[in-house]
């Protein structure tokens, strides 16, 4: 089931286009949209309100401006392929609608930061710190995989810096409060057995607007 409100649709869905739509198809779809939702159109008479009409027109304009520009479309497609647009660009914590911004959070110098700086200098990978709790849970780790960059403490600080509560993140990410809390505390024992921690960290990070590296 794929039911979305107008404001949740991506640009292709809004214009009823395939991902490989040509420029001509994009223009035609945009023109049809304008013809349908302009204030004098009969097509939308009797079904949608004035507010809905305005919303649709502004979304159509956004969609056309993005998809008709080669560079913007390329970036948009890239964002969609990485799943960034799973989250509404109009979410409350977003500072910008045009792109995902990287949060400029001052990182606290930790042991891990020092080790990272060593890693940057040296080609040889240093052994990663593993907590004693993690030792008892093989396979479950905050320090392996592509999301090892995001420690729980870092995610917590990014979240707090954005004035976001765990409840808000839980609602956006569809991850339970208990799991989010366990991720921030790196408390593996509290996490449900069998879950893929890296996936949850990746989802949480994306929700905060961070850019987890590719696998």
């Amino acid at each position: 089931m794929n039911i979305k409100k107008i404001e949740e649709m991506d640009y292709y869905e809004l214009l009823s286009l395939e991902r490989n739509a040509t420029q001509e198809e994009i223009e035609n779809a945009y023109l049809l949209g304008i013809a349908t939702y302009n204030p004098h159109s009969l097509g939308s008479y009797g079904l949608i309100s004035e507010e809905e009409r305005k919303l649709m027109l502004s979304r159509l304009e956004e969609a056309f401006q993005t998809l008709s520009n080669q560079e913007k479309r390329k970036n948009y497609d890239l964002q969609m392929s990485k799943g960034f647009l799973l989250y509404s660009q109009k979410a409350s914590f977003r500072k910008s609608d045009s792109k995902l911004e990287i949060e400029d959070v001052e990182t606290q110098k930790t042991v891990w930061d020092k080790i990272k700086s060593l890693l940057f200098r040296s080609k040889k990978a240093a052994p990663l710190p593993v907590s004693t709790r993690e030792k008892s849970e093989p396979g479950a780790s905050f320090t392996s995989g592509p999301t090892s960059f995001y420690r729980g403490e870092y995610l917590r600080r990014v979240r707090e810096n954005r004035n976001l509560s765990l409840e808000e993140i839980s609602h956006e990410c569809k991850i339970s409060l208990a799991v989010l809390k366990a991720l921030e505390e790196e408390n593996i024992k509290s996490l449900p057995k069998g879950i893929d921690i890296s996936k949850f960290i990746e989802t949480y990070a994306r929700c905060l607007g961070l850019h987890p590296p590719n696998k």
Partner: protein
Amino acid sequence: MAVEQKSYPPAEAQIQTFAEKEKSGVFLHPEAKKTIWAVGGGKGGTGKSFISASLAIELASQEGDVVAIDADLGGANLHTLLGVKEAALDLGDYVNNKASQLKEIVLPTPFQGLRLIKGTENFLFMANLNHYKKLKFIRQIKTFDAKRIIIDIGTGSYFNTIDFFVLSNPGILVVNPEPTSIENTYYFVKSCIYRILKLYMDYYKIEEFKKKLAEQVGNNSQSLYHFFNTLLSYNKSQARLLYNALKIFKPCLILNKAASEKDLVLGQSIAHVVKKYLLVDLNFLGIVPFDERVPQSIQNFTPLLTQYPDSPASQAIKSIADKLVNNVNQIPF
């Protein structure tokens, strides 16, 4: 809306068929291997009977074995448009048990390959057809010996009219390029959506959300979004079931009495709005241009396709008939 009396399982004959076909996605379609097109819409005077008669004539000339049924509860006209003048048994006689089978009241027409079941002048009776008789009628249409059946269901959103429409494959809406006609078309589509969802909810006993459905479908344009998402959070399988039922409903649209080629865009606009806001795939078949020869041909008791076969309206109807036969994504039986 009137509440149906449940002295027997609701819509039993239909639902049994629906349940059997559900997995293959043919909930709304009859068992027999035929196509049934119901021509309807929310507003009177849009040309439904004219379109029904014209499509019937064109299809009969192409393939033969077509039956036109006049189920217009607002008054039967199909016999006039098809040149059938003699008095004969009609749908009212069938409903009143003067004829037990539909085949007893089918009439020949001047057109080879085309037969007619006349509508009744007793429109009050037809408009209030009881549930059992309606089921009997529907059952017999499904098993009637004809390759194609075109039903002129007329105007309005009576229960019976809506049921005939949603049970066809596909239903054809006829609209004019006027705000009143377009508005009524949206009402009609909403009524169909409500009826489809309610049929399923009755059968699968999804009682809790019936009231919510009644409240939300009428409220605003994106109400179905709220309805389905509420149901999704409550019971995913029920939400999926109802959503799939709705996705099978794929009516078609003809814009009649078009003033110009610009009305092509209007037809596409209506389809766009219905898809985005009512979650229904509306297939726009095309426009039939306004043509003064249409009323002239009716006054002459001669179908337009016969008297003016090369007129723009005739050409448009032929093109639409081709689309219906060849291109429209009809769900297989």
